[in-house]
């Protein structure tokens, strides 16, 4: 007779001392792990619920402006420095990590229309309603000079200001798009297309010669500094308020439009947008790309900040507070963790880019758990219960109702188009919405 009976030695399974961790022998035989799928589903459901519980995006409000904030820019090389210009002509440099004003200076009479920072020249620029373009010295610690380093006349009203990624050129919007060199008091170049003024100007962060601007005749104009004439112009149905470039894909740009939508375009094919980002219920005033180029944040007159994925049509999150008024500027921080918004009621607000993300340094096990729950949520994202919980956002009543109303209007229009097509002679199906965005594309 040969016999063996299971006989485990307990010493191999108990921990040696109390300070040891417990021994966890594993056996991955699926028979020992029944009901895998439902258990995983329950975990995904719990992870989704917890994600909503921990979604507290608002970090703090930065107070210090004495009038509505009108424009904002982030420091090209410092994560915590943000420069903002207000409607009373004041320019303030903020430290986000210190949550305080680093330096402030009354730069202009009337609105500050644009601010930007050139890292290579250690200069900050501001342009205002007094038709002046001022340069300010800026130290590494973020101290602005009390007196401007130099002052140039813009020879006309300015509405926007931006500086190229290498810091060697400036562009201002106004009656025309003007190109400036910091060393010269006269503009280098002048770009014109039509007679209307330009409300926003943005340099591409990748291609330093590319500038996009929004013109008052509902157009978005692209200029190459090396060319004699502007490159392209695309005319939308309504006026665009802001434009920004993708920091990773040089040919992608996003436009904040008055028709409540944000449009992302591929520069090579401007006849139709890449995507229509809906959900705002009033004109969108500002837009910014995340440093990954995969996401967008936008601020609107409807007093909300919305975060969009570049490839999706609807926002993945909406941020609002009771006191936040119309948004004037939004920024996505360079470390992809924060969103900064400036609004009409004099405050700058700091938000988390991912609402449920913990801000502290995580232990390995915490990070593991978060990653596990994130992948569970992704895996079960299309289950109705989980999708419902993940999508639910509380928004103010006015916005909720406005969205419903817009939805009704949209559906009615769709139905009308469909009916019209059905009863027309050629029975042509109505065009998809994307095809109706661009009115005209000019070369």
């Amino acid at each position: 007779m040969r016999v063996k009976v299971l006989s485990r030695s307990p010493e191999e399974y108990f921990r040696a001392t109390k300070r040891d961790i417990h021994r966890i022998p594993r056996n991955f035989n699926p028979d020992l792990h029944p009901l895998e799928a439902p258990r995983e589903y329950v975990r995904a459901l719990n992870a989704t619920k917890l994600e909503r519980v921990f979604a507290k995006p608002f970090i703090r409000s930065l107070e210090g402006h004495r009038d509505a904030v009108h424009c904002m820019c982030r420091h090209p090389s410092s994560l915590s420095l943000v420069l903002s210009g207000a409607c009373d002509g004041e320019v303030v440099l903020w430290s986000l990590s210190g949550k305080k004003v680093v330096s402030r200076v009354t730069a202009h009479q009337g609105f500050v229309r644009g601010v930007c920072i050139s890292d290579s020249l250690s200069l900050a620029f501001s342009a205002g309603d007094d038709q002046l373009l001022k340069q300010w010295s800026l130290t590494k610690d973020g101290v602005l000079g009390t007196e401007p380093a130099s002052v140039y006349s813009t020879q006309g009203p300015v509405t926007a200001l931006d500086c190229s990624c290498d810091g060697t050129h400036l562009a201002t919007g106004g009656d025309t798009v003007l190109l400036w060199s910091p060393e010269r008091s006269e503009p280098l170049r002048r770009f014109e297309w039509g007679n209307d003024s330009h409300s926003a100007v943005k340099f591409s962060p990748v291609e330093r010669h590319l500038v996009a601007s929004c013109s008052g005749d509902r157009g978005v104009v692209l200029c190459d500094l090396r060319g004699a004439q502007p490159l392209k112009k695309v005319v939308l149905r309504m006026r665009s308020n802001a434009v920004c470039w993708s920091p990773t894909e040089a040919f992608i740009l996003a436009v904040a439009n008055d028709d409540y939508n944000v449009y992302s375009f591929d520069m090579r094919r401007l006849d139709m947008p890449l995507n229509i980002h809906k959900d705002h219920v009033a004109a969108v005033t500002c837009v910014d790309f995340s440093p990954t180029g995969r996401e967008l944040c936008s601020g609107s007159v409807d007093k909300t900040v919305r975060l969009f994925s570049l490839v999706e049509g609807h926002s993945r999150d909406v941020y609002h507070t009771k006191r936040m008024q119309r948004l004037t500027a939004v920024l996505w921080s360079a470390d992809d963790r924060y969103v900064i918004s400036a609004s009409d009621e004099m405050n700058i607000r700091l938000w988390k880019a991912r609402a449920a993300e913990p801000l502290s340094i995580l232990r390995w096990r915490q990070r593991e758990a978060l990653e596990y729950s994130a992948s569970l949520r992704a895996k079960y994202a299309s289950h109705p219960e989980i999708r419902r919980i993940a999508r639910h956002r509380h928004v103010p009543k006015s916005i909720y109702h406005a969205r419903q109303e817009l939805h009704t209007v949209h559906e009615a229009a769709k139905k009308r188009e469909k009916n019209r097509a059905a009863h027309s002679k050629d029975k042509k199906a109505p065009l998809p919405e994307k095809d109706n965005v661009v009115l005209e594309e000019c070369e």
Partner: protein
Amino acid sequence: MEVKKSKKARYFAASESAIPASSAGAPLVVEVEPSLSTSIIEKSKKREARRSGQPQKQKRLDKRQGDGVLVARGRPDPFSGSHAPVPKEKLHKYSREKPSKGASSLVRMKDKALKNTLQLRQKKVSLAIQEAVRAEHLNTEDAGFLEGDVGEDTEDITQQAIAEFVDVASSQKHFELSLTQFGPYRVNYTRNGRFLLLGGERGHVAAIDWPTKRLLSEFNVMESVHDVKWLHVETMLAVAQKQWTYIYDQQGIELHCLKTLDRTLRLEFLPYHFLLAASNAAGFLSYLDISVGKKIAAFPTHLGRCDVMCQNPRNAVVHLGHPTGVVTLWSPNDSRPLVKMLCHGSALRAVAVDSRGTTMATAAVDRSLKVWDLRNYGCLGEFRLASAAAHLDFSQTGMLAAALGSYLEVFKSCSTVAELSQPYLTHRCWDSIANVQFCPFEDVLGVGHAKGFVSCLVPGAGEANFDALEANPYESRSQRRQREVKSLLDKIPAELIALEPSQVNSVQQTTEEQARPPSQRIPKVEFEPRFKKKGKSKASHEQARIQAVHERQRREFVQQSLSSKKGESKARPTAVLDRFRRQ
């Protein structure tokens, strides 16, 4: 729960169902980093080369060939790469989906981005399976076995012989408790096999830490006890008494009196759902959620007194055996049985489902033992026992124990009739056996009989390597508390109990019949058979008549549709050369 999804989502779900849950599957991806050891070896080689004055020619000879095989001096490295080869037959054990399905659907896929994502996912799944196979090397224990000498059958080997032969620790696992006053005894082990619960029909309840033979508590409920069950932790136990069902704690203090479960005969605890299923003398099956103390469902079986019950551990479906020879499968979501199987011509005595949930064994008063495949509900084999089995139980490794009066028989496997005709082990108890249960993760079979309890050694019955995150026999108190919290967080809602547990990961698919336009569907006509005398309205006869009517209708419909198709094809003019046309 069935979910309708987009095409994209469906592909995701289909491929992801193979990725195991973290506690349930995903092994640690152990990548052997060769850098340190190889760098040391290389250094020492260089040193040697320098000493012997050889120029470093060898370095030039070492070349990585196309598929990453390192070739030194013309000989390939036998240990190429960081991963050891995996035997193919073992991959099957850990894979959760049929392999052919996913691969073929990807070939035809047009969306490149989606295809890439899915291919990546498939790679991850196959890597996880490979790593699970490799992790088998880390299993420390080997399963037990029993082999007789030449000409000696294992069934002739007595418990005493085994106990004398094995080591001292194992021999102490064979013991007998003589409890002559309050029997017959019901037996229940905890899920980790550490604690034993005995319930004597005349009121005696005892909770024992059986490996150390420490009595946790012992009390008499002064009422008849029909069944005892451990709940999710060893501090709570449920006792089905004469009128109500009670929950006691480890010390025998009454925690709850569940008046919603009355006259209970059998209890089953569904550990992942925190449900206590109870069948009672009136033929009701009730489900009680013990985490909130609420009765969530109760159904009349309409099949009489219900004292044969077991659960399918794979999908938490409760199997009931009835005096009519019918086995019914129940979930709390349906007031009618999910499946009704006529298994025997006479009253059922015992039902058992194996740990994989694919095989069911049933025994009836006519001494027959039948084995069923639960995937297609077909009978795998029928066998006639020496006497009617009062109780059946499967071990983790698929052994089947049958209580035949005072005689105990253990079959090594029940896949063939030959295996059933030759018992693996036998044992004779003092009195008729009431209840048997294999102890999880041990080679032990607990036998409760009219005059006490016997713990028998059955080599090879238990799973050798336990998973401590699932059931840990060496659990400490803090670990138990943590497990309780975590399992409560992972509590599966009762709505998800279905025959196919992975249904939650699958996409609702329309049948061929549903996919047809309504005009082409086979019409369903309600047919109520007229009552006929002389026993011609027996249930079976009535069913046969209904079937016949439906079958006739179906046939007529198909014939009609075929003839109309034929008419269409005839109407087409045929040319002489049509025969060469490609079909």
